[in-house]
């Protein structure tokens, strides 16, 4: 055992001393923090102001758009102000509040672009809309985002508003315009029919709300909260982390086995340690690497979440709570260990028979394809954690760690948890034994990798 431990230590040092390992570990929290922060920053700084031109032959309808855009701005600014107040609550000296940027700006049509007919004006504006020419705003070249052509009378509004724009993805402006005129037409109708608008809106807002109750909860706590919903989806994160972690470390193991083999170090090793000690040492050493990696990830996730949960983000706080509660983290640890042992022993057995990484990758293909199954089914299983698909997949040992992790939030029957756990443990023991036999015979093998049937022979021969 001492020798297996020495092998494990060396293996651990070898992998944790590489730059790639540390970059991977440090990059993770950076990406995570960026995931929270970047969309907000983008909203704040990167999104350009959208310039648009309105052609309003009636002369009275453009004001509806202006009013709607102003209301939209005030609403967003109000929200930002609230967040700012929350953030700087209790601070003695806080920086002055900076109002948010205006996203939409109506620009006047210059006289030289106004043609004699509407068609001519549109034709004049086309190059600007297509991005071929810049629009000048306060002496700065800018992009003309949209052209809105209004009908000559508000009676034609329903079908008569043209929205010219090449960007189909950003619907912010078109949504504002659409709802502004819809509202405009509606209130005109209400007035003409003598309907009390306020009363009507109250009636329209009437909605039956179902009280969502969970029969599994103790009396008095059945109410399904926001946190519950997040908890339902959280396993996806864990499954994904499990997948990435297992794959990363199993590949490390494969790589180092092939290195020892192709470098012919293995023969010296085998004069000092038995194949079993060598295999066990390698399994352990790389498992430590995996644990170190996961710990680093979990700690950094917690750090990022606790940083953001203070800043008015309810979700981050809920996620944080899920991470530290034993309901998910304990099965995660167990399934990581078992899943890792299963996949890495399979890869170790395979790796021991191959002389080059290329040979080994041919064997990896089918293994990787199988591993895709839990990824593809991840979302279905969360929605129906105790359905037929989930239950069946749980009993297939190579999928058990992922699928059961996936189902954890759905409170699967205890019998299934225990049953699949036993099956998985037995399968892991078997796969270590099976691979150990291959390893014993394969590790000194040179030349072509064996065919599948030859693999079985190696097992029998040992």
């Amino acid at each position, binding site marked *: 055992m001492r*020798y297996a431990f*020495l*092998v494990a230590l*060396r293996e651990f040092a*070898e992998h944790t*001393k*590489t730059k790639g390992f540390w970059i991977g570990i440090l990059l993770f929290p950076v990406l995570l923090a960026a995931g929270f922060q970047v969309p907000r920053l983008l909203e704040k700084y990167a999104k350009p102001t959208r310039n648009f031109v309105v052609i309003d032959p009636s002369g009275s309808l453009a004001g509806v758009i202006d009013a709607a855009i102003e209301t939209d701005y005030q609403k967003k600014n109000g929200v930002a102000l609230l967040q700012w107040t929350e953030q700087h609550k209790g601070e003695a000296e806080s920086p002055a509040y900076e109002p948010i940027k205006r996203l939409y700006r109506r620009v006047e049509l210059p006289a030289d672009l106004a043609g004699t007919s509407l068609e001519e004006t549109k034709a004049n504006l086309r190059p600007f809309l297509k991005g071929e020419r810049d629009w000048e705003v306060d002496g700065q070249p800018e992009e003309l985002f949209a052209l809105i052509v209004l009908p000559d009378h508000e009676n034609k509004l329903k079908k008569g508003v043209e929205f010219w724009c090449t960007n189909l993805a950003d619907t912010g402006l078109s949504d504002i315009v659409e709802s502004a005129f819809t509202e405009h037409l509606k209130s005109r109708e209400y007035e003409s029919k003598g309907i009390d608008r306020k009363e009507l809106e109250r009636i329209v807002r009437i909605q039956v709300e179902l009280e969502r109750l969970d029969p599994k909860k103790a009396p008095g706590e059945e109410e399904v909260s926001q946190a519950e919903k997040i908890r339902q989806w959280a396993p996806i994160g864990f499954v994904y982390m499990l997948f990435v972690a297992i794959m990363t470390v199993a590949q490390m193991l494969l790589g180092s086995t092939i*290195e*020892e083999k*192709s*470098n*012919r*170090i293995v*023969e*010296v*090793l*085998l*004069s*000092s*340690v*038995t194949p079993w000690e060598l295999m066990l040492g390698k399994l352990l050493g790389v498992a430590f690497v995996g644990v170190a990696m996961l710990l680093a990830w979990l700690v950094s996730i917690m750090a990022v979440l606790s940083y953001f949960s203070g800043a008015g983000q309810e979700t981050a706080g809920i996620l944080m709570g899920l991470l530290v509660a034993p309901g998910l983290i304990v099965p995660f640890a167990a399934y990581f260990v078992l899943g890792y042992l299963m996949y890495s022993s399979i890869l170790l057995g395979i790796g021991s028979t191959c002389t080059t990484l290329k040979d080994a990758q041919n064997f990896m293909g089918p293994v990787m394809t199988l591993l895709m199954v839990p990824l593809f089914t991840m979302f279905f299983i969360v929605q129906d954690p105790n359905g037929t698909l989930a239950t069946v997949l749980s009993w297939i040992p190579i999928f058990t760690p992922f699928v059961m992790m996936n189902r954890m939030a759905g409170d699967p029957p205890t019998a299934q948890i225990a049953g699949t756990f036993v099956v998985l443990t037995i399968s892991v023991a078997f796969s270590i034994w099976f691979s150990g036999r291959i390893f014993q015979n394969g590790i*000194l093998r040179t030349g072509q990798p064996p065919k599948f049937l030859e693999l079985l022979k190696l097992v029998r021969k040992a």
Partner: protein
Amino acid sequence: MSEPVLRLEHLHKRYGDFIAVHDLSLTVPRGSVYGFLVPNGAGKSTTIRMALSIYEPTAGKVEILGRSSALEVRNRIGYLPEEKGLYKKMRAVEVIAYFGMLKGMSRADANRKAAELLERYGLAEKSKVRCEALSKGMQQKVQVLASIVHAPEFVILDEPFSGLDPVNQEVLEQVIADLAKAGATIVFSTHVMEHAERLCDRIVLIARGRRLFDGTLAESKRILPRRVLLETGAAPEQLARLPGVARVERTGGESPGQSARYEVLVSEGARADEILSACFRSGIELHSFDKNDPSLRDVFLKLVSRAEAEEVVA
């Protein structure tokens, strides 16, 4: 005599239809430098691996340091395989210490001894260099040191000289001589007969998985008839009549009557110096007389070709 360090008895190894080792028996006595002279593909690595319990023999018995399995005494054995490799990312001193620890040394001991060996064999300034940055020769020296860092009492070196330049070959000969002086038993295989001739007390010769010879260096040379090279004006018939002469062959020189060179095969049981005194007694004037012992190379070639010929006949 104390117990031998290695005894192989009727060892067989078979892979399917292929027989890698056939009925091999040999004994390596304690304290000797033992040369393993084996042509390529003659079952050398297989034999060594069986001796070290890396492979199981198909039949036969291995006894190493008094045990039936090398695993029980692995910390007393050093092994350098023919195909050699190092961990590329580890530093020279780390690799040597690591293999020392795998042989039961404490971390402190292994580190100290590794540094000491590198110092003694001229690699001190390379001790902190990663193995991938070492030249091939240096890597090989590091490997040799890694296999002996735990001061084993029995060392097996498979082709330790291959790929080394003459300077480093000499360093390696020094390593082997130092080990022998310290009382270790060394088995090494080589294709270079000169190394074997210089270093070995005993040799074993294996071809086609069978032992052809096992004995001391001096004994090996008796396999080939001894020869004397001489130069004389006397007629070859005159030489042939001398006692102790089995055959005379002219190898060059002037025409008969003048001085010519002859190779004289000494008959079995006779000694070369008897021929010399017989020449004097018969009044044969010698211009040169050279007791030409067969080289190990000649012995090797002779035995291997004889074994191959036998195989063809069989």
